[in-house]
C-alpha cells in the first residue's frame, strides 16, 4: 500500500444552509462543531475560549483556577444508573478534572416546565445533593425559573463549576506531543446504551447502567503521583471517536488507535449489534482519556487500573497525518475515524 497522504478536510457547509437549529446541532458531531466554530467562538473572542478545552484555566492572584459550565437536557430524566441530577453534577465535576483542577464549588440553574410533578423535582434535587457529596463538591449558588408547559422537557439544568489547580502543568491539546500514548480509563458505551434501553420504541431488557460517575479522584491521583499529564478529556456526547478527533485537530497531530484495545462490555456490544451502533460514538459519563508521554505510560495505567480493570493503552500520537485519527481494525486493516454528522440512529440496513 502506498504511503497515505495527509489532508485537512474543510467542510463546505455554510451555516446559512440551516435556517433553524436542528437536533443534530446538539449531537456532539460535525454540525455541533460547526455551530461552535462559526458562530460561538468568533462571537466570544476570548483567547481562553480558543483553547477549546473542557474548561477555562486562568490565574487570579497566586491561584490557578479552572472554570467550566455545562447544560443538561437528557431525556428520559431517570435512566438506569443515574438521572439528570447526577449527570449535572458529575458532568461539570469531570470537566474541571479534565483541566487538572480539584473541583470545589458548583452553581446550579434549574429551568422547570410548568406541570412538572413536585415528586420528580424532589428526586432530582436529592440526586444533585448526593452526587455533590460523593464528588466532594459544594453546590453554593443557583437559580430557578419556570417556563410554560410545552416549552421545556420537564427539567433543564445548567451547572457551572470552579476548581483549583495545584500543579504547574498545562493540561490541554496544545501540550500533546508526538510519541505520547493515549490511555482510556475504562470500557465504553454504557451511558449511551443505558439511555437507549429505556427510550420509547427501542426498549430492551438489560443490566446496563450508565457509567455516570465523578472521575476527579482518579485524575487527582494521577496528578498527585506527579505523572506528566499532557491532556485529559472526558468522553461524553459523540463518544471516544469524536473526542479523539477533537484533540487530533486542535493539536494538529495524528492519533492512531487499536480496536482490540478498546474495552466494550459484551452486553453493550450486543446492544450495538442489535441497533446498528458503533460503540466508538456512544456517549459516556464516567470515562476519560489521558495523553501522557510514553515513559509515563506504565505508571499512569497502573493508577487508572486501580479504579477500573478495563483501563488500557489504546493508541499513540505521531506527526504523520496531522489532524487525523486512524484505527487498526480487529482484522488488521486501517480506517480513518471520522466525526459523525449528528447523533447515531438505530438502523435496519
Amino acid at each position: 500500500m502506498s504511503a497515505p497522504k495527509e489532508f485537512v478536510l474543510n467542510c463546505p457547509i455554510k451555516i446559512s444552509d440551516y435556517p433553524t437549529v436542528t437536533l443534530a446541532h446538539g449531537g456532539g458531531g460535525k454540525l455541533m462543531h460547526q455551530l461552535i466554530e462559526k458562530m460561538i467562538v468568533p462571537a466570544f473572542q476570548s483567547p481562553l475560549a480558543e483553547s477549546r478545552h473542557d474548561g477555562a484555566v486562568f490565574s487570579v492572584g497566586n491561584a490557578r483556577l479552572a472554570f467550566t459550565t455545562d447544560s443538561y437536557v437528557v431525556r428520559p430524566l431517570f435512566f438506569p444508573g443515574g438521572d439528570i441530577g447526577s449527570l449535572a453534577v458529575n458532568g461539570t465535576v469531570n470537566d474541571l478534572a479534565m483541566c487538572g483542577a480539584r473541583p470545589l464549588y458548583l452553581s446550579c440553574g434549574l429551568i422547570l416546565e410548568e406541570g412538572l410533578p413536585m415528586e420528580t423535582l424532589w428526586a432530582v434535587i436529592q440526586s444533585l445533593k448526593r452526587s455533590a457529596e460523593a464528588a466532594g463538591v459544594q453546590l453554593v449558588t443557583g437559580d430557578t425559573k419556570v417556563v410554560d408547559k410545552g416549552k421545556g422537557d420537564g427539567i433543564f439544568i445548567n451547572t457551572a463549576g470552579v476548581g483549583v489547580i495545584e500543579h504547574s502543568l498545562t493540561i490541554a491539546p496544545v501540550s500533546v506531543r508526538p510519541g505520547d500514548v493515549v490511555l482510556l480509563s475504562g470500557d465504553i458505551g454504557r451511558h449511551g446504551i443505558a439511555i437507549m434501553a429505556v427510550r420509547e420504541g427501542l426498549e430492551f431488557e438489560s443490566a446496563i447502567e450508565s457509567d455516570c460517575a465523578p472521575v476527579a479522584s482518579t485524575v487527582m491521583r494521577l496528578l498527585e503521583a506527579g505523572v506528566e499529564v499532557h491532556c485529559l478529556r472526558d468522553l461524553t456526547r459523540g463518544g471516544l471517536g469524536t473526542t479523539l478527533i477533537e484533540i487530533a485537530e486542535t493539536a494538529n497531530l495524528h492519533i492512531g488507535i487499536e480496536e482490540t484495545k478498546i474495552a466494550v462490555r459484551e452486553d453493550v456490544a450486543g446492544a450495538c449489534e442489535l441497533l446498528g451502533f458503533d460503540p466508538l460514538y456512544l456517549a459516556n459519563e464516567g470515562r476519560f482519556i489521558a495523553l501522557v508521554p510514553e515513559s509515563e505510560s506504565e505508571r499512569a495505567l497502573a493508577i487508572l487500573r486501580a479504579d477500573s480493570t478495563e483501563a488500557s493503552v489504546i493508541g499513540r500520537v505521531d506527526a504523520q497525518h496531522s489532524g487525523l485519527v486512524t484505527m487498526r481494525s480487529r482484522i488488521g486493516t486501517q480506517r480513518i475515524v471520522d466525526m459523525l454528522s449528528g447523533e447515531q440512529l438505530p438502523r435496519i440496513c
Partner: protein
Amino acid sequence: MCLAIPGKILSTVGVDIERTARVDFGGIVREVNLAYTPEARVGNYVIVHVGMAISVVDEEEAKRVFSYLEEMGEFGELAELRADEGPKQ
C-alpha cells in the same frame, strides 16, 4: 439492508403465529416474534431482523466458514492446474 443478528432463545410463550421468545444478544434481552421459525426451541440461536426471527442458525453449517479453508488447501493444487488450462469466457 438487513441488519440481522444471532441471539439465543431463553424462553418462549404462545404457539404458532402468536409465539414469541425472550432472546439473548450477548447479554441484552429482547422480545422476538417466532411466527416464522416454528421449529425453533429454547437454546437454539435464531437470526433476528427488526424483531422477527427469520431463521434458526444451523450450528453444523456455522463451522463451514472455518473448515472451507482447510478443504481449499487440499484442492489448492487442483485449482492451480485448472487455472493453467485457462477458464472459458
